[in-house]
């Protein structure tokens, strides 16, 4: 797939439809990045997790912020990038109570003079990019049953794609396409239930036999359980214009306690390929049938053309929660390779013939028992934090974590509007004692080229540039630039709070290359700080308090944008 011509903008959180997060700008490179300095900052005034990617288009930077989801527009044409306008969508206050992993949003999206944001209260809003006036608003989610929207929307052709969140509360997952001009709902594909609602029709051709059958979204669940079955689409979406297919993952099934939902629980914890105009499914692959450890399938799908075993293949490279980097055939959904990138005890490998993981029953949680050394922990080998690809080095730069956990299960009651879990967790560092890693994975050689251990999970996104410099942030607040080929640290800057956002690079109206990132700790990993949790309770934050008990000593709350450039 030819790389997009880099116009110096960043119109969507993944940069482009292939989700490479690669900037072709070369002004900043390995020789001069050490001179990088702060160009300007902007304080959002909000102190919760800043997971968003700043969006740059039309000489303006658009920042989507955590609840109350204010959208800021900064005028990049003026010195200091002053505030041009701000839009306040006024989401429901009560939505804050049903957001599992801090009240975050992962970014806005720009297309043809419109900026699209999602709110925690379950709305998608289109705003005029120049003036900040509301163009249309669509209520998609019902927060009274625990539904929120935290993902960054994606514009594909004339549609904006939005997925819901809330598998932890038994919310039934869906992906919805809205018309960009009017906000009208064009189609909605559910992640569970009868074929008609999952938009599975005669063109559905999954690669593996276990995904063939009628109404598997019903028959692979106990009766009615699919209605509260999770599988939300809160993660990343990619689009291949040649095949005209969108790719996105579905989240974990509900509840976490697998003993309450026998069966494969289709179509959760997997990846769908769909036609973007009608939404109908083309193929599906399930990473975690009857998932037992909260291994969502929602991580990024990087669309690449790689030379594998002597031939050119159009593939998806997907680092999954279950600790494997998958290479899937984009057209068929076949698993080309699957290799662990962290310590894995929950599975004993992926069967090449059926594509199914071989489960390790010793670390399956059971009612009333505690199982230990569950690796990777529930946030996975890698969670939502997106990787970046460099076509120059042919490496995938993966920010991720090194965590294991103890876990127990109990029968969960579904009470709509409250969590539907049935699980208690305590996480801790995996082998080596470091809880985070920033690594460069070679998907053809199927191994890590180099890896940088970090004290805390690397919960920020990654940015790769054509200057062979890769950027990421740590939860202590360091924003780092490393050599894309060797991993050597070239530059770092201590921001005011831990970084869990996605760094971007753009060309300013003055022609200079800028690198921008939001600083403000939070998200699931940073909730112990952003929500003032009591870390003495090791099971707080679904077990993250146990692994992050020392985070408050390293960072406080924050909510500022940092933009860097060469002098």
């Amino acid at each position, binding site marked *: 797939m030819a790389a997009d011509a880099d116009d110096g903008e960043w119109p969507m959180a993944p940069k482009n439809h292939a989700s490479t997060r690669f900037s072709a700008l070369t002004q900043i490179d390995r020789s001069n990045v050490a001179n990088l300095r702060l160009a300007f900052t902007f304080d959002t005034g909000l102190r919760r997790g800043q997971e968003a990617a700043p969006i740059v288009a039309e000489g303006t930077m658009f920042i989507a912020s955590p609840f109350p989801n204010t959208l800021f527009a900064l005028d990049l044409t003026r010195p200091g990038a002053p505030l041009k306008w701000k839009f306040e969508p006024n989401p429901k*206050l009560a939505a*804050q109570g049903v957001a599992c992993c801090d009240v975050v949003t992962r970014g806005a999206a720009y297309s043809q003079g419109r900026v699209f944001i999602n709110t925690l209260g379950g709305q998608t809003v289109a705003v005029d990019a120049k003036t900040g006036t509301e163009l249309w608003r669509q209520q998609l989610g019902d927060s*009274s049953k625990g539904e929120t929207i935290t993902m960054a929307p994606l514009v594909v052709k004339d549609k904006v794609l939005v997925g819901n969140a809330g598998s932890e509360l038994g919310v039934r997952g869906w992906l919805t396409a809205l018309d960009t001009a009017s906000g009208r709902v064009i189609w909605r594909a559910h992640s569970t239930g009868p074929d008609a609602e999952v938009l599975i029709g005669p063109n559905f051709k999954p690669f593996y036999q276990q995904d063939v059958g009628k109404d598997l979204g019903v028959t692979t669940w106990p009766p009615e359980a699919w209605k509260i079955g999770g599988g939300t689409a809160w993660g990343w979406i990619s689009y291949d214009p040649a095949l005209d297919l969108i790719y996105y993952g579905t989240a974990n099934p509900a509840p976490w306690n697998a003993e309450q939902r026998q069966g494969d629980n289709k179509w959760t914890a997997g990846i769908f390929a769909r036609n973007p105009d009608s939404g109908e499914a083309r193929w599906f692959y399930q990473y975690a049938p009857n998932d037992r450890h909260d291994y969502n399938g929602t991580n990024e799908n990087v669309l690449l053309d790689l030379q594998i075993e002597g031939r050119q293949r159009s593939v998806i490279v997907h680092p999954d929660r279950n600790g494997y980097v998958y290479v899937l055939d984009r057209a068929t959904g076949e698993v080309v390779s699957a290799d662990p990138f962290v310590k894995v005890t929950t599975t004993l490998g992926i069967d090449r013939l059926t594509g199914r993981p071989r489960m390790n029953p010793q670390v399956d949680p059971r009612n009333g028992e505690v199982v230990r050394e569950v690796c990777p922990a529930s946030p996975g080998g890698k969670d939502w934090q997106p990787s970046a690809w460099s076509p120059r080095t042919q490496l995938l730069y993966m920010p991720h974590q090194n965590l294991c956990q103890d876990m127990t299960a109990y029968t969960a009651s579904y009470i709509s*509007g409250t969590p539907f879990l049935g699980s*208690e967790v305590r996480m801790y560092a995996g082998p080596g004692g470091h809880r985070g890693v920033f690594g460069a994975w070679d998907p053809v050689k199927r191994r890590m080229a180099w890896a940088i251990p970090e004290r805390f999970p690397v919960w920020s996104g990654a940015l790769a540039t054509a200057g062979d410099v890769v950027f990421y942030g740590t939860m202590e607040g360091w924003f780092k630039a490393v050599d894309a080929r060797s991993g050597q640290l070239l530059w770092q800057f201590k921001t005011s709070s831990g970084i869990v956002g996605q760094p971007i690079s753009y060309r300013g109206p003055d022609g200079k290359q800028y690198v921008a990132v939001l600083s403000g700790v939070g998200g699931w990993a940073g909730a112990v700080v952003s929500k003032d949790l009591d870390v003495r309770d090791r099971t707080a934050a679904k077990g993250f308090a146990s692994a992050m008990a020392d985070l408050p000593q390293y960072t406080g709350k924050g909510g500022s944008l940092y933009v860097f450039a060469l002098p």
Partner: protein
Amino acid sequence: MSSRCLRLWPAFAAAALLCLPACEREKRQFDSPSPPPTPASAPMMRATPLQPGNAQLGASSVPTAHMPSTDYRYENNAFAVSQGKRLYRWYNCSSCHAPGGGGDWGPALSDDQWVYGSSPANIFASIAEGRPAGMPSFAAHISEDQTWQLVAYVRSLSGQLPKDVAPGRSDTMSGREPEAGRDRERPKPMEKSDGNKR
């Protein structure tokens, strides 16, 4: 021999007197003392539209809730506190506020920060009326008596209850020492904790 008995008499009497407190046994109140609400019972204002369990039915069909007609009396009743601990898990409180009270969706209950107050009446109102920033309103979904039991248990999470009343062990995987082993937190005055709207 009889003179020896006579000499030991005071010792026996003292021992018997010391045993007398054991006659006092904590009452287990199975039957709820709260009478059904009369038309005169003051209706309770819910502080949030979020209610458990009735997502399909919409706000127009919200059942009327009433102000509590009984007082809090479970501060020293170990049975009530243990029932509160059971309900804390049964009603998914432990999922939102973490099994040990450390917080998750909802704020921590085991520390000294009380956004809406730490008194039993404040906690009752938080549970029954709900709070604007995401705490659902449980009035009419949890009976008044059970709500008081939950209030007592929530107070034990930060060590407010006497050591012989708070639960001494957990039946599940532990996150920290049981409630009876926690030091008593001194609740801070109510104030906004951060810049975000509430």
